């Protein structure tokens, strides 16, 4: 636990199936107060199902969960007052204006905007110029900010954000994470899911998920430091053929395309980057470049899947 011992959210062996598909398999984890906890995994890894169980919208087939010590099945009503939820899809009223949406969500939680304004001030300031614009006419980044305001307006102690940055431009994504970091300082516990591995670094701890199962829960730094092998980045023309040759190489354990280069895990005791470069040049590759790199979360994820 990174901050305190008392868990704000605790899941025990949560499972959920939709017909034959196992959406969630024995997911267990705990989130401490004031922590930013990231659920990282590709589409279909069970993130949204997990969120819907925690927000009391879905019942798990087995296992249990508590939010702020309240049971998600028995005390669902009390939980709804303490929870801020942003669904994966934009779900505010598109035909109401920015201000009306905020007012509406404040009033159904029996609070006023003024009461909790300090909490949303920094975000709402950016929205203020458009406050009479219909929510449906906002840009993607602005929509997410408004949704966050609406989820925060009743001053929840726990915030559940389901893929808040999907479909948002890189600058807005960065801004959004800056906002989350600020909220964390106000003791709000944040659980956020994302398919973008690079965003994992902004979480205190992350759960790597795959096909409904939690593979690992750790701080992102430690996940990276626990990367078991040596990682090289390899470039050379032609790139596509390079990948097949790398996979054939006896000193290379695995290799995969990663952006504009290939990443390869190697038996570093048997070969150096320079030797590999020579090998590849002999095979006729041009512009060959091999260098040792720090693994990213995505490399760790891929390594874990290959295990």
């Amino acid at each position: 636990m990174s901050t305190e011992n008392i868990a704000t959210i605790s899941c025990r062996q949560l499972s959920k199936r939709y017909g034959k598909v196992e959406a969630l398999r024995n997911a267990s984890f705990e989130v401490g107060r004031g922590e930013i906890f990231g659920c990282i995994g590709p589409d279909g890894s069970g993130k949204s199902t997990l969120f819907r169980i925690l927000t009391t919208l879905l019942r798990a087939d087995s296992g249990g969960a508590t939010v702020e010590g309240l049971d998600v099945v028995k005390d669902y009503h009390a939980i709804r007052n303490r929870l801020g939820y942003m669904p994966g899809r934009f779900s505010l009223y598109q035909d109401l204006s920015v201000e009306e949406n905020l007012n509406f969500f404040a009033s159904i939680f029996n609070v006023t905007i003024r009461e909790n304004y300090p909490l949303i001030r920094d975000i709402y300031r950016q929205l203020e110029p458009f406050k009479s614009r219909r929510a449906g006419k906002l840009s993607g980044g602005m929509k997410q900010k408004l949704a966050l305001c609406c989820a925060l307006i009743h001053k929840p102690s726990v915030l559940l954000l389901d893929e808040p940055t999907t479909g948002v431009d890189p600058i807005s994504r960065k801004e959004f994470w800056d906002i989350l970091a600020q909220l964390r300082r106000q003791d709000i516990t944040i659980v956020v899911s994302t398919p973008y591995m690079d965003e994992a670094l902004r979480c205190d701890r992350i759960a790597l998920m795959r096909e409904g199962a939690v593979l690992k829960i750790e701080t992102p730094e430690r996940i990276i430091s626990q990367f078991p092998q040596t990682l090289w980045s390899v470039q050379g023309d032609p790139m596509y053929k390079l990948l097949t040759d790398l996979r054939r190489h006896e000193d290379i354990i695995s290799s995969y395309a990663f952006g504009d280069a290939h990443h390869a895990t190697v038996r570093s005791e048997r070969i150096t980057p320079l030797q590999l470069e020579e090998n590849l040049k002999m095979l006729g590759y041009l512009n060959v470049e091999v260098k040792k790199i720090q693994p990213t979360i995505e490399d760790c994820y891929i390594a874990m899947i290959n295990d």
Partner: protein
Amino acid sequence: MLKFLIEKEFKQLARHSFLPKLIIVMPCVMLLVMPWVANHEVKNVNVCLVDNDHSALSSRLAQKVSSSAYFNLSATASGYSEAMQSIESGKADLILEVQPDFERRLVREGEAEVMLSVNAVNGVKGGLGSSYLLNIVNDYAAELRSEQLPYMGAAASGSFQLQASYFFNPSLNYKAYMVPALMVLLITLLCGFLPALNIVSEKESGTIEQLNVTPVGKLTFVIAKLIPYWIVGFITISFSFALAALLYNLTPVGSFGTIYVFIGVYILALSGFGLVISNYSNATQQAMLVAFFFIMILVFMSGLFTPVSSMPQWAQNITIFNPLKYFMQVMRMVYLKGSSVAELTPQLLALCGFAVFSNTWAMLSYKKVR
């Protein structure tokens, strides 16, 4: 909380690109156009006359027929087969054939025959047309008798005349019968379809997800969805009362108070069913088709066109579960007979039952948790 939910519904309704227009246009079309077309009166029946007698008495009959508002003397033919052709070509609906010795027999024997042949492809037109024409012929016969033509003496002595008097709608004005029923149809379409589309559209836009994590309760939610339609229904019906009074000079013999009591209950019952459909549907299209299916059946089994009492017994048994039937009865009875709540208690109880049933169902079928 309820206040804000309702306020939101109204804002959404007002900003909708289409619905507010529909709420205005629908009563206008319903009351401006429908009473003229949804009409069982048979008019403009084309008669082909075959006058084989060419006498004074036969041409008086022809004149009598053509002076009626219901008939057009569209053609005359020299023989039956020629007249038949005009029926086949669609120029005539009825053939009235006068025998060659019409006048002579009338004078000598005090009786004569005419023949009526009817095109019954359209049963209503054929049936009503021939009975109207029969009335005219009988009328003519009575007229001849009352003139006490000296040469007709004996035959006229034992005749009697039938005098019908029509209660509640003395002039048999078909519009007085249809307009109240069309108002029912109007309310049914608006307050049945709109709620059916409402919750499901929140499902489609995803807003229901956000609403479900709030502390808003089921009862509050359903009431917040019902009240806007209630108000819309009241406005629309009041507007159509005004239209009916202006256009057709139709005002209820009974009191508006009675009607409003029933409308209040009826809209609740109907919108409840709409919400139920919405709760079970996953897409607007689905909700629309299901609502359409039910409203179709309810309308045809309500007595709007065919009186319930002339349906087969099994169908009459089904109409017991049709809220539309009760409200249709109420509107016609209040508009034409001047009935009050006291006489309409069975209908009131039935509608209250429907309202409680449908709204309880709507509340129970709205599920936040799956």
